[in-house]
């Protein structure tokens, strides 16, 4: 990463925060409407960080679980086309069903604890990796497949040394999409039924008109998404080093 990649956004952030703070002071905007950055900073406390940790854990579990499952499904689809034919329409149906509509059901089935949030997160993360995984595993060049055939490679060797590495660029761009979705899934789950987490905090703060706490929770949610995205970006840069990838 270039030093300017850090410096420029940091400078912009400072400018925005200062302008925001000044505007609130000058225009005397009431705090319950738009809080000043200083008020938001004041809302950062131990309780907030505990809520953030809960959401982070849910999103991470959902992200990891969904992507492992999606990759295994993609491999099954590619090696067994009838399976892909039968299941793919249902995978699309699952994708098009709004998660918000499913979330109450998850809470009924799995309770208000961790389970419903992780599954909500998994439901929303699953599809992009499945689609990209299938596409990636099928992206092998004809000549490369012929080369492996001419070497007498076993189908496991062809999978391990050709198909799987060929799919990496596709899979990693799907993982990056998944990172932000994972946080969305966890927070939607918390909205519907929870007693902790950032979603719960946003909801409760809105009842009490504690706008600074809401803002602080939103900042935390964005930060969790950024951290996951950045971590996947680092992995991508290591694994798919031959491609010019988006900077995390």
């Amino acid at each position, binding site marked *: 990463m270039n030093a300017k990649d850090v410096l420029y956004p940091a400078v912009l952030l400072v400018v925005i925060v200062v302008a925001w703070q000044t505007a609130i002071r000058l225009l005397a905007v009431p705090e319950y409407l738009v809080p000043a950055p200083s008020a938001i900073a004041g809302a950062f406390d131990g309780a907030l960080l505990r809520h953030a940790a809960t959401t982070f854990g849910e999103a991470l579990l959902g992200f990891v679980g969904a992507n492992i499952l999606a990759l295994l499904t993609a491999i099954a689809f590619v090696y067994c086309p009838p399976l892909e034919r039968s299941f793919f329409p249902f995978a699309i149906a699952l994708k098009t069903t709004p998660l918000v509509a499913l979330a109450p059901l998850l809470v009924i089935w799995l309770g208000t604890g961790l389970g419903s949030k992780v599954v909500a997160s998994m439901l929303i993360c699953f599809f992009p990796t499945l689609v990209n995984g299938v596409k990636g595993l099928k992206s092998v*060049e004809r*000549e*490369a497949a*012929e*080369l*492996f*055939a*001419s*070497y*007498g*490679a*076993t189908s496991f*060797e062809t999978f391990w*040394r*050709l198909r799987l*590495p060929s799919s*990496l660029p596709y899979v990693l761009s799907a993982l990056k999409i998944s990172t932000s979705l994972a946080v969305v899934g966890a927070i939607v789950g918390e909205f519907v039924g929870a007693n902790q987490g950032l979603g719960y905090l946003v909801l409760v703060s809105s009842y009490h008109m504690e706008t600074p706490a809401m803002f602080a929770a939103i900042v935390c949610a964005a930060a969790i998404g950024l951290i996951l995205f950045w971590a996947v970006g680092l992995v991508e840069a290591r694994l798919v*080093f*031959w*491609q010019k990838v988006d900077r995390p």
Partner: protein
Amino acid sequence: MSAVQPSPWTSAPAPVIALRECSLTLGTTAVARDLSLEVREGEFLAIVGPSGCGKSSLLRLMMGLLRPDGAGQVGARAEKLAAGMVFQKPVLMPWLSAERNVGLSLRLGPGRIVSKAERTARTERALRLVGLIEFRRHHPHELSGGMQQRLAIARALVAEPTLLLLDEPFGALDELTRATLNRELLRIWENAESCLSTIVLVTHSIAEAVTLADRVLVLSPRPARVSATVEVALPKPRSVHFDDLEQMDCFRDAVRSVRAGIARA
């Protein structure tokens, strides 16, 4: 008492590969019809023809990657052909270093070489042969197009094949790189120490075919047949005479014959 005369038929060496009456249909397209040809031991055979006439399919037939229709036969002298293949694209694995790419075939299939030392020795020999030993740790995206194609040739040579099948390997390269690689290919083929004896080259360049090959087969448009065979009498070793080949009368004669064959096809 009479000595048995050796029959002239048995003294001729068996062809390395023979296609007899091969027809090939891919989908609804008739790619080849009743095509017969032989690849002789020790020769450099070039196959030219209009684009889309099925030259590449022909190589895939020889390689056993495609099967001919019905009654067609593809015969090889050896049960298992010791053949290397190079495509128009280098088809390198971008996640592997140059030496790993070259040594790939040594780690795969029943002919896998378990000994790491043996693999390394063979890989280094192949890399040296194409002049890329100092780039062994580079990855394909760090190499130029010509170097990538040389790597593909090294990969084909690493298994020490006696036969090399080349599918327009220099088609995507610029003229200068192409000439360099043509000369290198001749040098490798004419190198007495290498076990490589026979090369089949598919190309759309008549000049390249005549420069390199002992024999040029001209294919007709689809469905492909052999419409002409031209013997090239250029002096050997060609890698030594390389720069003068195009000025020679027999070069021009051969080019003319190939052109006539294409026109007739």
